[in-house]
């Protein structure tokens, strides 16, 4: 039995638990045993909530025995990036400093919603400090490791989420994405990730980074699992000021709808530059599977990335200003130095970035009048080695860290929904972004589902376990 075949999908688990073929407790024990066996390699978990999980699983089994419907995720184990509040745990957000905060007294909204759908939380996951990271490395907890080659990065900042799902320790994990932190680990770890429209999913009781750019979303090993988790988490929430009041728009029932009428194009310009050959190959592979040859230029994407960079560093600095004053030596040094510099950006330049954001949004909305979906690379390269500082791209030596997100930042900058799909190249997988208009997650999920059914994209078994 391979490491992956030991873990069925979320939808298979839910079906088996609902029908009584498996108990939620059996599923939970299997997940806990896999975490025990493999997490010494992956370092994806920072907390395993075993007793809580067993208690919840027993409740689900009792409810099923009593004939009650426990929901579409009955007995499905999941884990969350450690910036989500988990009742009884301290929300460390990848930091040393936040470990001194009181324990959370209530779960994050998205955890409550997944558990209300029958899922079982098994733990909290490693991440880059305060989410200001594209690598998945962490000086306090050690790096999360890539399930296909543990000497490589998971990508970040939701590194543990990518590692845990890529390593098939859990079928579903949650993460956050400010500039690419769901899509980058999805790409490097060879799994599916959904960054929904800005405001679609509640961020209540999660530790923030950049309020105007923060999104939460799921990771999974299949599109159906991704959609099941997404659907279970939708809905208004007064505890998040940015959360939409739109009604729930379930995507799972629409996955198999024909995509023949959709107008799909490749994102041109900036999105066809700064690519290693494997990234270009993955994009070409997806385009060929869909029969797409049309290229649409996305104007000023490089400037959009720059504006996202400026907003990120200044809002991040604002968030952490007092911690920078009082405990500068307790930060990861590279992140501290970035945040300090963020506090020094003159205000008019930040205002210009927010004004440019509105201009750029209008350009993309205009493109979406004649296109339903854009295809773009998720990362310029496959997972680099842990600790790698530079890579050579188009003959130019560049720093790895800030350049991992060059293709994700111009998209999250204006809150567009994206599904990252894995192309299982050898020896390392790499992701491709499927980008839809605002509030049309269903389109990106339908195209991802079609690609998966064609065999063009899939989450490979963990090759490094």
């Amino acid at each position, binding site marked *: 039995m391979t490491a992956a075949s030991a873990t069925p999908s979320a939808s298979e688990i839910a079906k088996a638990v609902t029908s009584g073929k498996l108990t939620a407790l059996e599923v939970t024990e299997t997940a806990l045993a896999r975490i025990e066996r493999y997490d010494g390699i992956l370092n994806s978990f920072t907390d395993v909530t075993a007793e809580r999980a067993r208690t919840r699983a027993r409740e689900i089994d009792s409810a099923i025995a009593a004939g009650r419907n426990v929901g579409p995720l009955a007995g499905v184990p999941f884990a969350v990036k450690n910036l989500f509040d988990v009742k009884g745990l301290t929300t460390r957000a990848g930091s040393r400093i936040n470990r001194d905060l009181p324990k959370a007294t209530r779960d994050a909204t998205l955890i409550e919603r997944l558990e209300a759908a029958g899922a079982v939380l098994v733990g909290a996951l490693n991440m880059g400090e305060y989410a200001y990271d594209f690598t998945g490395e962490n000086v306090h907890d050690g790096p999360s490791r890539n399930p296909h080659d543990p000497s490589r990065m998971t990508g970040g900042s939701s590194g543990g989420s990518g590692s845990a799902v890529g390593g098939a320790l859990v079928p579903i994990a949650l993460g956050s994405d400010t500039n690419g932190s769901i899509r980058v680990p999805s790409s490097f770890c060879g799994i599916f990730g959904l960054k929904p429209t800005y405001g679609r999913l509640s961020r209540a009781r999660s530790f923030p980074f950049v309020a*105007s750019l923060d999104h939460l979303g799921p990771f999974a090993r299949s599109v159906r699992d991704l959609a099941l988790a997404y659907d279970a988490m939708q809905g208004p929430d007064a505890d998040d000021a940015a959360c939409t009041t739109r009604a729930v728009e379930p995507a799972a029932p629409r996955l198999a709808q024909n995509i023949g009428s959709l107008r799909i194009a490749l994102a041109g310009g900036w999105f066809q530059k700064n690519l290693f050959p494997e990234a270009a190959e993955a994009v070409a592979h997806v385009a060929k599977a869909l029969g797409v040859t049309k290229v649409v230029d996305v104007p000023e994407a490089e400037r959009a990335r*720059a504006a996202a960079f400026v907003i990120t560093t200044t809002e991040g600095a604002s968030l952490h200003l007092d911690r920078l004053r009082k405990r500068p030596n307790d930060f990861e040094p590279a992140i501290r130095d970035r945040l*300090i*510099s963020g506090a020094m950006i003159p205000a008019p*330049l930040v205002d210009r970035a927010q004004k440019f954001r509105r201009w750029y949004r209008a350009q993309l909305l205009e493109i979406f009048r004649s296109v339903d979906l854009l295809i773009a690379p998720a990362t310029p390269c496959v997972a680099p080695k842990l600790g790698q500082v530079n890579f050579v791209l188009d003959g130019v030596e560049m720093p790895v860290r800030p350049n991992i997100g060059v293709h994700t930042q111009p998209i999250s900058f204006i809150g567009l929904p994206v599904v990252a799909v894995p192309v299982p190249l050898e020896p390392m997988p790499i992701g491709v972004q499927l980008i839809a208009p605002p509030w049309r997650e269903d389109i990106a999920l339908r195209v991802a589902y079609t690609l998966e059914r064609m065999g063009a994209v899939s989450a490979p078994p963990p090759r490094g376990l």
Partner: protein
Amino acid sequence: MSAELIDDYIASVAALLGLPIEDAWKPAVRANLEVSLRMARLVEEFPLPDETEPAGVFIA
């Protein structure tokens, strides 16, 4: 912009904000600030109409 000018600016803003910066951190803070200002200038040089509203509270 000279390194000296940026270092003076960093020292002044740090004093205004009450941010302690040890000598050993200064080169990294300056390098980060130079990158951020380069990014900010790329945005600033793009002409926008005076009427453009910022996306301060963003609705997609």
